[in-house]
């Protein structure tokens, strides 16, 4: 290995240490808290007797989904955001619900709700259309 190789090696190392911090978060902490609060308010607003009513088209029945945990991870899809919330049905089975949200002025609103449709989220992620917010 020549000195030139060592120099370039060090340069790449330096560049990598500089580039990584530059990938700052696209949302501030306050905005993240706001979007989480907005989702929570939306979930609370949808509850009927403490449960989210979901029409299972395959089973042909309305299921009651009880909110359990909000995922801290925020995904981004262009100018929009995706947040996940874990629900549990009456039989105790976890049901994931993904909320697709958009910014409206200083607020955030849910424009699409995907109940028990994790396939959609995975497909969009594999297509590179949805990524983790940094």
């Amino acid at each position, binding site marked *: 290995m020549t000195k030139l190789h*060592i120099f370039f*090696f060090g340069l790449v190392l330096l560049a990598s*240490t500089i580039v990584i911090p530059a990938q700052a978060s696209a949302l501030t*902490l306050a905005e*993240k*808290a706001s*979007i*989480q609060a907005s989702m929570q308010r939306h979930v609370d607003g949808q509850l009927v007797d403490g449960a989210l009513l979901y029409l299972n088209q395959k089973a042909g029945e309305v299921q009651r989904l009880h909110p359990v945990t909000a995922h801290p991870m925020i995904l981004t899809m262009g100018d929009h955001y995706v947040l996940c919330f874990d629900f549990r049905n009456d039989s105790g089975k976890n049901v994931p619900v993904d909320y697709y949200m958009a910014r409206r002025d200083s607020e955030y609103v849910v424009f699409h709700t995907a109940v028990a449709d994790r396939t959609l989220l995975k497909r969009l992620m594999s297509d590179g259309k949805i990524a983790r917010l940094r």
Partner: protein
Amino acid sequence: MNTKLALLKRLKVKLLAIVGLAFLALIVPGIWMLLHTTSLADEEMLATRIGNLTARTALALDRHQAYDHPFLARDLMSPLAADRAFLCAEVFKVGHQPVVAIPSSQGCPPGLDGNEIEIPISVEPKWHLRVLFTDAELRAARNFEYTLGLSAIAVAFLAAMIAVVAGFAFLVERPLTRLLTAIRNSSESGELQTANWRGSDEMGQVVHAYNAMVERERQREHTLVNTNEELRRSEADLSDLNRQLEDRVTDRTRELELAKKSAEFANFSKTRFLRAMSHELRTPLNAIIGFSDIMVQGTLGRLENDRYREFSADIRDSGRHLLKIINELLDIARIEAGQDTLEEEIVSVNVLMTECMRLVSPLAKERTIALHTSEIDPELVLDVDATKVKQVLLNLLGNAVKYTPNGSSVHVAVSLRPRHGDPRRGGIEFHIRDTGKGMSPDQIPQAMAAFERLDNEMTASQSGTGLGLPLAQMMIELHGGSLTLESEVGVGTTVSVWLPATRVGYMRSIINDIPPVQKAG
């Protein structure tokens, strides 16, 4: 400066630089990404915690319509205040002053630094909840994690460097140092030394290979020393042999010189003896021949008894034969002693041959033998001792007639041999061919030797001295020519005499490549 450069060129420093850079290139981005991911997760956790708490507080305020009940509102907002990131919270109608605040005495002053969330509590009228919270815990956690990460990097880096140095010293430096020491000692002392290191890794194999090479060199050197010793011994033996050989050669040379002197002396004695004896013999022999011839001729009176006349004739013929032998012996002795000289003169070949043929013709007629001669250019001459050449030709012709049966023929041919620019090839040739019984190849050398005769079955008429052919050969060789003999049993014998071109010429001019006669001397 040179010391610094030398340090940088050391293998260990290079290895440390490579390993250190590779380690940092791998570990620093990894730790950095880990810290970043952890920090992001912490931030999301805090945002989720505060966001959920704020949303649930807003839900409680809305559900209890607590906008106009400050105490109730504060009670409902108290879980917010319990969070460690909480700074302050206010409930207000859009465009109006807050109606409820925590802390109740202060609310959210304008200069308070923090992160703000504002979410609607009710749609109509538009009540909002505003919460300020701090990210101090994130910063603290981040500082701690970064410090921990850097410490981990530093410790791991130091550990890696120590491991590299220790590993290098144990695995490479020690065997390398021993190998280098062995090489330096070998170079300084001039005697190959092995390196003391046992290992099965690559360095061990290098040292082993070096030791094997040293062993081979030692064996080779040992072999060379032995070979040199053998060579030295062989050289001494050879010198002894040479000395012995020289001594033997010297002894042999001395013996040969003695033998040569003895032979020369014997030859000289023989010649002197022959000359003396010939002289002593010829004087009385001439008297015997002369007196016996007088008796045969009856010069002083005819002998009465025919038997006495026959005896006298036998005495005369025997005397003449003896005289011929003596003369030929004298000639041979003179030639061998180098005392004979050529009396060169220009003589016509045609005349020479005619004279010879005339002299032998009586004997040929007596035996009814035909003599045939090839045509000879009358201008052709020789520069030779005419007496000796004539003696040679007469001898050869006489032999041919003598050894040819009665009624047969003898052929004589004279021809010129072109020399094609080479004086050694040209000249004149005399071929005398008889049709006698011939000789076998092993008899030819015998016929050319002095005193040797092949007359076991010969008649008296074929008797000779046994000196004719050797004497003829000597005389021709005195002229620079040669005499050869070819014979085949039952066919006949051909004797060829060759004289060189320098002894051949023409009376009128030079023809073809035959040069004119050059007078010797």
